[in-house]
């Protein structure tokens, strides 16, 4: 039972991490860490300019 609960928690954590990755939240956390910044509106905008500019240079699949 405990093993099942652990597995469920692990799956839940992975799903949340995936959602955060797809939503660029993980990338933002990395961005803050690399630049030694704290979260702020300006930091987010700076991140958006960098991240989105690169992200939407790649083709989306059919």
């Amino acid at each position, binding site marked *: 039972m405990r093993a099942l609960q652990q597995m469920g928690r692990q799956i839940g954590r992975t799903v949340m991490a995936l959602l955060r990755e797809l939503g660029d939240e993980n990338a933002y956390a990395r961005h803050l*860490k690399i630049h030694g910044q704290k979260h702020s*509106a300006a930091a987010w905008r700076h991140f958006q300019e960098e991240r989105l500019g690169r*992200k939407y240079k790649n083709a989306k*699949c*059919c």
Partner: protein
Amino acid sequence: MPKILGHIFWAAMAVLGAYGLGAIALNRGEPINSMWLVTASACVYLIGFRFYAKFIATKVMALDDTRATPSERLRDGHDFEPTNKWIVFGHHFAAIAGPGPLVGPTLAAQFGYLPGTLWIIVGAVLGGCVQDFVILFCSIRRNGKSLGQMAREEIGKVGGFTALITVLLIMIILLAVVALVVVNALKGSPWGTFTIAATMPIAVFMGIYLRFLRPGKVLEVSVLGFLLVMGSIFAGEWVAHSAGWAPWFTLSGMALAICVIVYGFFASALPVWLLLAPRDYLSTFVKLGVVLMLGVGILFVRPELQMPAFTRFVDGTGPIFAGKVFPFCFITIACGAISGFHSLISSGTTPKMIAKEWHAWPVGYGSMLLESFVAIMAMIAACVLEPGVFFAVNSPAGIVGATPDLAVATISGWGFPVGAATMASLAQDVGEQSLFYRTGGAPSLALGMAHIFAQSGGGRAILGFWYHFAIMFEALFILTIIDAGTRVGRFMLQDLLGNLHPKLGQTGWMPGVIGASAAVVLAWGYFLIQGVLDPLGGINSLWPLFGIANQLLAAIALCVATTILIKMHRARYMWITCTPLAWLVVVCYTAAWQKIFSDLPRVGFLSLAAQLQSALDAGKVPAAEMAATQAQIFNNRLDAAVCAIFLVLVTTILLDSVRLWYRILGGAEEGKLVESPYVLSQLRPEEV
């Protein structure tokens, strides 16, 4: 698991898979349960993943976890970042899964469920997954380089340049055809049009919320956006029943096409954070959620397939698109079996996130298997409809007759009974004025999905909601492809134009941005309008063109993969990439030849142009239709020319590759591998 239990498990899997394949292949004359398709495909996928993909990983590519990947060596926290393999798996799957695996199988269901299903399963295991996996591996070993860069470095400059032009042309056809799918789904549908129109202000609201109100809260704003979209579906029903509002959202195909073109231009030129990015977040989450829901729905309802294994249309006389089962089934279903576009993703973001080389196994091969399973689910959703209903929805007026009575008489005459009253009742159930002539695949797929969801709970009372939910889901991510694709097309064009004048290549120079965006939008917009005006529904000409182009891109990717395998001294395994390559060459060249030169006007572009020209010359065309006929003649010749250009481009790469293989294998040239050097990985397990 002890070894003997493992052997027993895989033997049981093989027997079950063979039994499932036998059941779907040999059943005739009575409905078959969809669980047979699920069982057969799941067993084959598992066996393909465990044995064939592992063989490729071990013997052919010799994946090495001690070798540092680009995500570790070039780690910058932006593009290059070692990431958990299941997160990369989900990320890669979300990137490769578009409307293709949903729409292609729906259209190919006109041949019956069997040809498409077998192609999806076999094509994926031996072709599509192999392409994605090998290209991902090649890109990992080359610092995450793109397909075009690898083609240039491994085959030659001609190959690289040709690949770039091919991708740009394919992009234009892709955008036109997916835009046509949306236009045909929303034509004359105030409910659907309102819902989709509402997603634009919702996306802008999300963009502003994320930028100024709650910066960084992407998941939070996505939940809000999703709730608002759900609200817009309910509001859409009210709009459809409102005498004042409904006419504003009841648009013709041409009006919708112009709206989509204008939208594409603005979405490409506006700041990304305002419209494109929030819409992309929303559509990605909705896409993953709906795919999961559809899977659960099919397992829960276990619907029976009403479509026979084969229909009479394997002979090439199909109403949705003309052409025999070979080669047209194999180009109609591209994504889901093998899609060249995936090679762009496998050599794009994904290789920069892979932490260990062995992660390419589940990510490259496994994600494509999942996409193939999505295609199987789409096939099931299309085939749960009564065949008469399926053909009434998907057939153009130019084939079945311009009135509902004529259409039901024609379709019933084919042996697929359907009544005008049945269609009217179904249209009423889903809140539409009519379901006739809704070509493009999206409405029939939405109907099938709505049936499955409604049977899971709620019944006919909520059929309308589920139908419009499914339309919203399809249109949402198709529009995301249109705006992102137009933007990428703009960058590609500016890249090419930059060779003429450096200023034109600057992505921040506004006149260049506007000019290149307009050029790309006008290019795909032209093909879109051509499709809207086509009396045969547009899909008949554009979807095969797209399918041929997409498969030819896969042929380019497999040329690159084979070249690299030969240079790696793995020539004895080149059959792994050469087998799908040979198949694609045979299929695409046959299809392209038939689309250009077939004597049958519904199949061959030139013969249709000649037929229309003869009618024009003989004075058989009424004066009011002369301009439209002349435009049709030009369009058919243009389609033939585009098809021929694809063939010339791919033949160039193919010949260039074969020449190189011959020289390397014959010892006339040393195959110099352009691979990044071995560096020992220092990544700790907890880091991934």
